[in-house]
C-alpha cells in the first residue's frame, strides 16, 4: 500500500513537471510568434492613451464651445435688453476701442516719415532726421482731425503713451523704433489726409525740416490690441 502511495507521489511530480514545462514552453512560443510582443503591447497601450486624450480634448472643446455660447448668449441678452444697457455696452465697446484693449481695423491714413537725404548743406544731422516732436505733431494732428486709433510702427498709442527721443531712435512706451516711422491712423481717409496737407500745416512744416513725408490714404488698417490693461497705465 505504501508502495503505491510512493508511486503516485512520483507520478504526481512527474506529471506536474512535464505539464508545467509544456505549458511554459507553449506560452513562450506564442510570445515569440510576434517578434517583439512587448513593442506591440506598448503600441497598443500608447494608442489607447492617445485615444483617451483625444476624447478628453474633444469633451473639453465641447465644454469650451458651450461656455462661449453661453457668454455670447449673455452678451446678446445684454444688448437685446434694456435700452440703457445697450447704450452702456456700446459705450464700453467704444471706450475699449479708444483705450486700445481690442484689435481694430478700418480705413484710414498711413503716414510715413523718413529721415531726409544727406546733403552737403547740413553739417548737423539733427537738421534732417526725424525727431520725436515730428512724430508728436503728426499724431496730434491726426487725433485732432478725428482719428479713432493710432499706431506707430504697429504699436498702439493710448492715452498714457509716452514718446521719447533716445539718440537716433524713438522709444514709444519704452520700446525703441528706428526710422522710418509708419504712423497709421484709423478714421476718415479724406479728412485725415486733407488736414495733413493744409497749407502751412503739418506736412509743410515737416518738409520744411527736410523730412520726407508719404501719405497713403484709403488703406484698410489692422491694429493689434494692447497686451493688457496694465499697458494703459494701470487702469
Amino acid at each position, binding site marked *: 500500500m505504501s*508502495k*503505491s*502511495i*510512493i*508511486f*503516485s*507521489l*512520483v*507520478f*504526481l*511530480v*512527474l*506529471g*506536474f*513537471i*512535464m*505539464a*508545467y*514545462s*509544456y*505549458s*511554459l*514552453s507553449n506560452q*513562450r512560443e506564442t510570445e515569440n510568434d510576434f517578434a517583439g510582443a512587448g513593442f506591440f503591447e506598448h503600441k497598443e497601450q500608447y494608442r489607447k492613451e492617445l485615444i483617451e486624450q483625444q476624447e478628453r480634448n474633444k469633451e473639453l472643446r465641447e465644454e469650451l464651445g458651450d461656455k462661449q455660447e453661453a457668454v455670447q448668449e449673455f452678451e446678446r441678452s445684454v444688448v437685446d435688453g434694456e435700452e440703457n444697457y445697450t447704450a452702456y455696452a456700446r459705450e464700453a465697446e467704444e471706450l475699449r476701442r479708444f483705450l486700445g484693449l481690442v484689435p481694430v481695423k478700418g480705413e484710414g491714413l498711413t503716414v510715413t516719415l523718413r529721415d531726409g537725404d544727406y546733403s552737403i548743406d547740413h553739417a548737423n544731422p539733427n537738421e534732417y532726421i526725424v525727431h520725436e516732436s515730428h512724430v508728436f505733431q503728426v499724431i496730434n494732428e491726426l487725433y485732432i482731425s478725428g482719428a479713432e486709433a493710432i499706431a506707430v510702427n504697429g504699436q498702439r498709442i493710448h492715452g498714457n503713451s509716452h514718446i521719447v527721443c533716445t539718440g537716433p531712435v524713438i522709444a514709444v512706451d519704452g520700446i525703441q523704433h528706428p526710422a522710418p516711422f509708419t504712423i497709421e491712423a484709423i478714421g476718415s481717409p479724406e479728412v485725415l489726409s486733407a488736414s495733413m496737407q493744409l497749407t502751412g500745416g503739418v506736412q509743410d512744416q515737416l518738409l520744411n525740416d527736410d523730412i520726407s513725408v508719404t501719405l497713403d490714404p484709403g488703406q484698410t488698417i489692422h491694429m493689434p490690441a494692447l497686451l493688457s490693461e496694465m499697458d494703459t497705465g494701470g487702469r
Partner: protein
Amino acid sequence: MWISILGLLLGISLGLLTDIQIPAEYTSYLSIAVLASLDTLFGGIRAHLQQVYDDKVFVSGFFFNIALAAGLAFLGVHLGVDLYLAAIFAFGVRLFQNIAVIRRILLTKWSEKKKLGEAN
C-alpha cells in the same frame, strides 16, 4: 496502480492549470528536471525488466536526480559554465541507453514467446 495513474493525471492537470510565471533563465532547470525524471522512469522500467528493480533506488533516484540536475544547472549559471549542458548530455545518453536496453529485452522476450508458440 490506479492510484499512481490518478497521481499522474492530477499532476498533469495541476501543471496545466498552474499560472505561475517564472523567469526565462530558470526554464532550463525545468527542462533538466523533466529529463532527469524521464531518465529515472525509464531506468526503473529497465530495472524492472531486468528483475533488479528496487523501490528505494527508484524513488530516491527520481527525486535526487531532479534535485541534482537542477542544482548543477544552478551552479553552472552562477559559475558562468554551461553545466546544464553536461546534465542534458548525461541524461540524454542514459535515456537512449535505457530505451535501447528495454527494446532489446522486449524483443528477446517477444522472440522467445514466438519460438515457444512455434514449439507448441
